[in-house]
């Protein structure tokens, strides 16, 4: 049983890592610049990759047709089969940065001018949804990870203080934690967001959300860390270390805090998806990262319009991505919890 759960853990981790890598290398995988508008093709349907041309000949290299207005019905669009635009791989395109450090012009996919490759269609401004999806993922995922990091750091610090020094520190911090835990999560998030400036740039919004979300969620990790520290503090080997003159700092660093790793890991796998969702929710409601930056949240918010909801199914793409990541993290959390309970 233990072998199986370990293997499962690694499989899930590998999958998640791969998904994150794709998002990290958003520039490489995106054929188009996420902010590039094509006013001539708003809400264009996803391009169909074809392998067999008009003459029935099979090509290894897929190609797309351009979409032009239908001759009979101006509101509809049809494919211009006269000209086939081959899809090229590893093309040189617009410049992008990887993690703000690397610069490159290499893209995985691309087509020649005139028949832009829209794997997931376009939005109301004609921007490629696929490219925006990947770049938006960077924002949503990063916000989730950073905020989770903040919560865990805060929670560890306060939980350690409470557990190690006890008495007043413990009582005070635990009361505060209870307060934060009693607050309804979504309402608190919105309320805190309410009390902050409304119209801010996407970058500021990102930072703000990350900090706010991270600072709200410290209570549960703090409680768990406190529990671990309390029990670790009483261990005989800690007492023995005191006996030969170890300082509090040494005890914490060497003997007590390493015990919290398991708890922190499980909490991270639970918090990260929650916080990704928090950012998405906030942006969806218009209180998070706004235009022109893309986040899965603000990409989904256009679905609140009736015509978008009914006609343009590809606008659900961020939802699909969100689902995929949520599933991945959920599986990770289950695997970690299984591992933790197995090794007890």
């Amino acid at each position, binding site marked *: 049983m233990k072998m199986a759960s370990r293997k499962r853990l690694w499989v899930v981790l590998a999958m998640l890592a791969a998904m994150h890598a794709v998002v990290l290398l958003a520039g490489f995988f995106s054929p188009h610049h996420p902010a590039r508008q094509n006013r001539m093709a708003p809400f264009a349907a996803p391009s169909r990759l074809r392998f067999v041309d008009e003459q029935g000949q099979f090509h290894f290299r897929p190609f797309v047709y351009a979409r032009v207005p239908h001759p009979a019905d101006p509101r509809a669009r049809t494919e211009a089969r006269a000209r086939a635009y081959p899809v090229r791989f590893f093309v040189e395109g617009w410049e992008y940065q990887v993690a703000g450090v690397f610069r490159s012009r290499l893209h995985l996919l691309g087509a020649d001018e005139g028949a832009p490759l829209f794997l997931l269609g376009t939005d109301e401004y004609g921007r490629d949804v696929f490219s925006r999806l990947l770049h938006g993922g960077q924002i949503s995922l990063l916000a989730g990870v950073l905020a989770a990091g903040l919560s865990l750091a805060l929670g560890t610090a306060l939980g350690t203080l409470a557990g190690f020094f006890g008495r007043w520190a413990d009582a005070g911090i635990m009361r505060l934690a209870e*307060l934060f835990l009693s*607050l*309804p999560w979504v309402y608190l998030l919105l309320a805190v967001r309410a009390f*902050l400036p409304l119209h801010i740039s996407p970058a500021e919004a990102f930072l703000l959300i990350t900090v706010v979300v991270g600072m709200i969620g410290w209570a549960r990790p703090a409680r768990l860390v406190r529990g671990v520290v309390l029990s670790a503090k009483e261990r005989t080997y800690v007492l023995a270390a005191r006996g030969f003159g170890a300082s509090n700092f040494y005890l914490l660093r060497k003997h007590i805090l390493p015990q919290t790793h398991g708890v922190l890991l499980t909490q991270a796998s639970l918090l990260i998806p929650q916080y990704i969702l928090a950012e998405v929710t906030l942006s969806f409601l218009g209180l998070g990262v706004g235009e022109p930056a893309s986040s899965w949240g603000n990409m*989904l918010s256009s679905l609140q319009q009736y015509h978008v909801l009914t006609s343009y199914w590809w606008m659900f793409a961020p*939802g699909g991505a969100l*689902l995929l990541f*949520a599933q991945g993290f959920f599986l990770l959390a289950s695997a970690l919890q299984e591992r933790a309970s197995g090794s007890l």
Partner: protein
Amino acid sequence: MTRYLAARAAHALLLLSGISVLSFVFFQLAPGDFFSDLRLNPSISAETVAALRAQYGLDQPLHVKYFRWLTSVAQGEFGYSFSYHSPAAPLLLARAHNTLFLTIPATILAWLLAVPLGTWAAARAGEWPDRVSAAGASALLSVPDLLLALGVLALAVHTGAFPVGGMVSLGYEQLGAWEKVRDILSHAFLPVTALALTILPTLLRHVRAAMVEALAAPFVKASRAHGLPRRSVMRHALRVAANPLISLFGLTLGNLLGASLLIEVILSWPGMGPLLLEAISARDFHVVIGAVMFSAVAFIGGNFAADVLLYAADPRIRTK
């Protein structure tokens, strides 16, 4: 008994006042207030804005603002809404009423589904009923609420079976009494279903876990060995499982005002959620704080109710 309950009640009150203080601290820290946008209008002078501020007491220090709000709460007004030009309480109550109209049926539905299903899964732990329901619960659990609501919306639009959004149709006023009821119910169907789907998976898991633990108790084996029919054994096991289930019930009670926010927004149901959002955009702080306090009261009240129920149900707590 009363001493225990009084202690819990005092504890709850302390938490509530803590939350209100915290909210006001945020209030004070926030840059700008309701009248900030007026400043952008060149035809309104700075003095007018300042006078308006003074009139509504927005320029007072923190403790003054807090005390005025407390007195307003004591008077049953919960502060003043600048957007709606009325005390906040009636607004909040009306919207809370609408929210409860969704959450109560959804919660009941979820419990009605979760208890039998969870018990059945626990009784047949490891076999196909258990595995199927666990897989279903996991699948549902990993779908974010946002997506669930959007999905339900999309479904409604495509099938056209139910009205999409809102609580009442146009021309509601002209309908007869029975038709009014039907109208509201048809509008409520989708949100209630979506909400129930968000509550169900965690509930199912907890019920199953509680029942599994109860069924593992030695007395169950003993009763089976004595030849007690399966039904009565389950009944007894259910009583043992009641302890964690009651706490869970308290938690679901506590979520009555908080769980439906996204669903209300997406399906345009006029509950506390959209009110909160409006108030945030308008920087109508008293409404924001009122909404937070309402949901906090529900949450803490739910826990308190759970404490009371637990006390009544579990003799071990009474003898402590």
